[in-house]
């Protein structure tokens, strides 16, 4: 006997329910890791004037790099500029919460750190911020991953992840490569 139109629709609805379950499972995993592991995309609506960035207190040249702040938190500040990072090498400890703060005086840049989940766009006008924990030690590559002009391909820096015991801040709390 012939299959009716409603039979067809019923099979489609059944399939749609399977799809719904698959989608819900992904959704649930995202929410679960959001709650348990605090996984979010890096977001930080904090504005800063790119035209006067070098006149700002926080992103003045001498304040760049890694610093253990007086309250004990580790913050690494990096400026992305055409076509280099300042500083070109930063040190961070392994298995400790680290906050990376990045911004730019000129155009759009972006970074990732190979082998980690550190990844953010750097948009002029904003401070990009990534909270993370580095899980492996070694010299990692931190390239600019967003087209920023003709020198883009040569724009990269090094992130030196060191064991906690080799991470020795100076009197001001700063740690630098070399």
């Amino acid at each position, binding site marked *: 006997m012939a299959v009716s139109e409603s039979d067809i629709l019923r099979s489609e609805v059944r399939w749609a329910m399977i799809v719904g379950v698959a989608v819900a499972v992904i959704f649930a995993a995202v929410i679960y890791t959001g709650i348990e592991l605090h996984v979010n995309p890096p977001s930080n*609506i904090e504005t800063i004037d790119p035209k006067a960035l070098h006149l700002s207190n926080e992103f003045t040249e001498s304040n760049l790099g890694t610093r253990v702040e007086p309250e004990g938190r580790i913050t690494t500040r990096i400026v992305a500029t055409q076509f280099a990072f300042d500083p070109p090498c930063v040190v961070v400890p392994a298995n400790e919460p680290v906050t990376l703060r990045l911004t730019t005086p000129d155009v759009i840049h972006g970074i990732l750190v190979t082998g980690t989940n550190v990844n953010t766009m750097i948009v002029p006008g904003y401070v990009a911020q990534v909270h993370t924990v580095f899980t492996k030690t070694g010299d990692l590559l931190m390239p600019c991953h967003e087209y920023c002009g003709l020198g883009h391909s*040569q724009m990269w820096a090094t992130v030196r992840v060191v064991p906690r015991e080799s991470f020795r801040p100076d009197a001001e709390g700063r740690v630098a490569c070399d």
Partner: protein
Amino acid sequence: MSVESEAEDRPWQVRASVIVVAIVVVAALLGFVVLPVVQGRSAGVDAFSAICRALGLQAGSPAVRQPVSATRAEPVSLVAWTEEVIARLHNPNEENGSDLAANICASCHGADGVSPDPAFPHMAGQSAFAIYKQLHDFKNGARGNEIMASVVEQLDDEQMADIAAHFAYFTKGALDPTTPVTNDPAIVRLVERGITARGLPACASCHGAHAGGPIETPTLAGQRHEYLAAQLRAFAKGERRNDIYHRMRDIATKLTDSEIEELAAYYAGIGLYQRIK
């Protein structure tokens, strides 16, 4: 063969709208309330702040407290490209600019911006931004040079802008960056391609014809050999430090002495041509 009437279609419209809106509402509740509040609680961020952060009304992640910094600025240059400065450079007082240039600048840098003495740089071909930045830095001590400091001492910001715009207008498009006289492949490579392994971008990525680099980037084509080499050495030694965020200091320290010499020769060898006016 017919499409249902409006009345018959009403349930469809209602059902579709309810589903679409309900999904948005659930997503918003999760994204703006549940996730931030739960994340904030374990990070020591109060519920109100966490929700504000999730909405974008406050800076920071709902899951982490914001870091603080108590450092004071130590700027290497006081020039900021604010809308006002840019506007002034676009709309200078031309008469003022040419008078000042004739009286103050011409003896060393030439009446038309082409310097008669190898020790002094040409102004020809420079943009108003490039000249203004250096004048301002000389005046404020960001770039050390006794002669220039005394020359610009008496000038205010507007006068410096007028001078800068004067030279830029006078020699607009006056340089041909495509005709080098040196053809050392290693140097051409440095200029055109850079060296990724050494973190050296191509010189042309800022100083080339279609670069899109920082607006204060000076034109190197046709510049004085002695001047270029001296500046690169000064950057390398940290004697000159008015390039914000080490843009040139980083590059110059990575160059060898002979590369500096050859690069200076390369750029000096690119000719001046078809001067406007």
